[in-house]
C-alpha cells in the first residue's frame, strides 16, 4: 500500500486556483518526483500535503485522512518538509536549528544520537555546530535544512528543489545523501526538482505537472523514454 495517497487535490491562493484536481502517490520506502516548469504547481503540491494552503480533495497518509489538519499536527505524524528557500532560522546556531527539528518528537528523546547521525551525514555541519546558521553558505544551509528534517525521524520527507542555487558538485553531494537516507533509513521521499535528469535517476515514480494538472505519470524509467519529456525537459 502507498504511504501517501493524494486524489482530486485542488488548491488556491485567494481567487487563483493553482491545482486542478491532481492524483499521485508515494510508495512506502519509495521516491516519487514531481516535475514541471515554473508555476506548474509543484511547490503548492508540497505545501498542500503539509496543510500550508487551503485545499479540497483527499490526502491520506498511512491510510489516515490528513487534509484540513494543522501543519503542526501533520508534522507530528512523521512528515518532514524541507521548504523552498530552506526555512533556516538565521539567528540561531546550527545545532539549535537541528534541535528544533526534533521538537515535535520531544517525548521519544535521545536527540544526541540523532545529532551525531546528522553530523555523520554532513560533517561540515558538525564543524560549524555553534556558528549562527545565517553565516553558512547556500549549500551548507541546504544540508542544514535536510538535517533538520531528518531530526524528526520522519517516515516521509518532502524536498522542495534541494539543488536550487547550488554548485553542481554540492548538488550532487546532496542527492547522494538523499539516496542514502532513502536506502538506509527507509524514509520515503517526495521530491520536487527542476533538474529533470537527476530527479528521474533518483525516483522510482514520476509525475509531470503542467499548470496544475498531471499530464504524464508512470515509473521513472518509462518517463525517461517518453519522447515529449525528452524533448521538452531533457533536451536530447
Amino acid at each position, binding site marked *: 500500500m502507498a504511504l501517501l495517497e493524494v486524489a482530486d487535490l485542488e488548491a488556491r491562493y485567494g481567487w487563483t486556483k493553482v491545482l486542478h484536481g491532481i492524483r499521485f502517490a508515494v510508495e512506502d520506502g519509495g521516491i516519487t518526483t514531481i516535475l514541471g516548469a515554473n508555476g506548474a504547481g509543484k511547490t503548492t503540491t508540497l505545501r498542500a500535503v*503539509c496543510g*500550508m494552503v487551503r485545499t479540497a480533495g483527499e490526502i491520506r497518509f498511512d491510510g489516515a485522512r490528513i487534509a484540513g489538519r*494543522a*501543519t*503542526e499536527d501533520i*508534522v*507530528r505524524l512523521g512528515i*518532514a*518538509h524541507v*521548504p523552498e528557500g530552506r*526555512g*533556516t*532560522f*538565521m*539567528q*540561531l546556531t546550527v545545532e*539549535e536549528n537541528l*534541535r*528544533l*527539528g526534533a*521538537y*515535535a*518528537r*520531544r517525548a521519544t528523546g535521545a536527540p544526541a544520537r540523532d545529532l551525531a547521525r546528522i553530523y555523520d551525514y554532513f560533517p561540515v555541519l558538525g564543524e560549524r555546530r555553534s556558528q549562527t546558521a545565517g553565516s553558512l553558505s547556500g549549500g551548507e544551509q541546504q544540508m542544514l535544512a535536510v538535517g*533538520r528534517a531528518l531530526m*524528526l525521524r520522519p517516515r516521509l520527507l518532502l524536498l522542495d528543489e534541494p539543488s536550487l542555487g547550488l554548485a553542481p558538485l554540492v548538488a550532487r553531494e546532496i542527492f547522494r545523501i538523499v539516496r542514502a537516507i532513502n536506502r538506509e533509513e527507509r524514509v520515503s521521499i517526495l521530491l520536487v526538482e527542476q533538474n529533470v535528469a537527476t530527479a528521474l535517476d533518483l525516483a522510482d515514480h514520476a509525475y509531470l505537472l503542467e499548470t496544475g494538472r498531471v499530464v504524464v505519470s508512470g515509473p521513472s524509467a518509462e518517463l525517461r523514454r517518453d519522447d515529449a519529456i525528452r524533448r521538452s525537459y531533457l533536451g536530447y
Partner: protein
Amino acid sequence: MEIFVQQVVSGLATGGIYGSVALALVMIYQATDVVNFAQGEMAMFSTYLAWSMLNAGVPYWAAFFATLAVAFVGGLAIERVVIRPVENAPVLTIVIVCIGLLVILNSVAGWLYSYIQKPFPSPFPAKPFKIGDIFFGAHDLGALGVTLLVLVVLYVFFRYTTLGLAMRAAAQNPVSSRLCGIRVGWMLALGWGFAALVGAVAGMMIAPIVFLDPNMMSGILIYAFASATLGGFTSPGGAVLGGLIVGVTENLVGTYVRFIGTELKLTVALAMILIVLLVRPSGLFGRVAVHRV
C-alpha cells in the same frame, strides 16, 4: 565620592527595573513586531493584586510568587483572548488594541483601589547597609539583586531549554517553526505570559520607592521605552543594559548638573536617546534591519 557611589547604586537599582520592563517590551516586540503599550499597566495591576494579598495577611514571599503565577496566567490569557482576534491585522491596529487595554487596566484599578497613593512594603530591611564608609539603601541592593536573578533565570530558560528555543524560533520564523511542529500561537501567548511575569517583578520592586497608584507605571514605561530604544529593540541584553545606563545617568544628571535639576531630567534623558539614535539608528546593540526588496 560617597554621594557618587550611592547615586550610582540607586541608579542601578531603578535602572534594573527600567531594564526589566524594557526586556518585557522587547520580548513581545521580537515575537510580534508590536510594542505593548499596556506593559506598564499590566505590571501595575499585578502589583495591586500583591497588595491585596499582603493586606489579607499573606506572608510577603508567598504573595510575591502567587502574584507571579497570576501575572503569568493573566498575560497568557490576554494574548489568547484580546490580542488573538487581531493577530493578522495591521500593526497599528494591534497597537490601538494595546492602548485600549492600557486605559481599561488603569481605569479598573482606579475604580477598585481608588487613585489614592498606597505604601507598598519592601521585603528588605529598612536599615541601610554600610559597606566601607558608604551607606547603601537595603531596598536598592535587594531590588537590584531580585531583578538580576530574574534576568539570569530568563536567560537560562531561553538559552538552554527546548521550550525557550522553540519560543525564540517562533519569534524569528513562524512558518519554519510550524514545519518543526511548534505551535506558534501558543509560543506567542507564553511570551506574553513571561513578559507579564517580568513586569510584575518590576512593579513589586518599584512600588516601595514610588508608592502604589494606578499611574505609577506610566513614568516607568517611558523610561523603559528609552532603555529599549537605547539598547536596541532587537537585543534583550541591550534593553537591560540600556535600562541600567538610563537609571544611572538620570540619577547623576539630576544630582550634579545644577541648571537641569529635576525639572528637565526627563528631557535630558530623551535628548540623549535622540542623539544615540542619530548615531546608531537601531540602538546601541540592535541589529540593523535587513529588508528584502
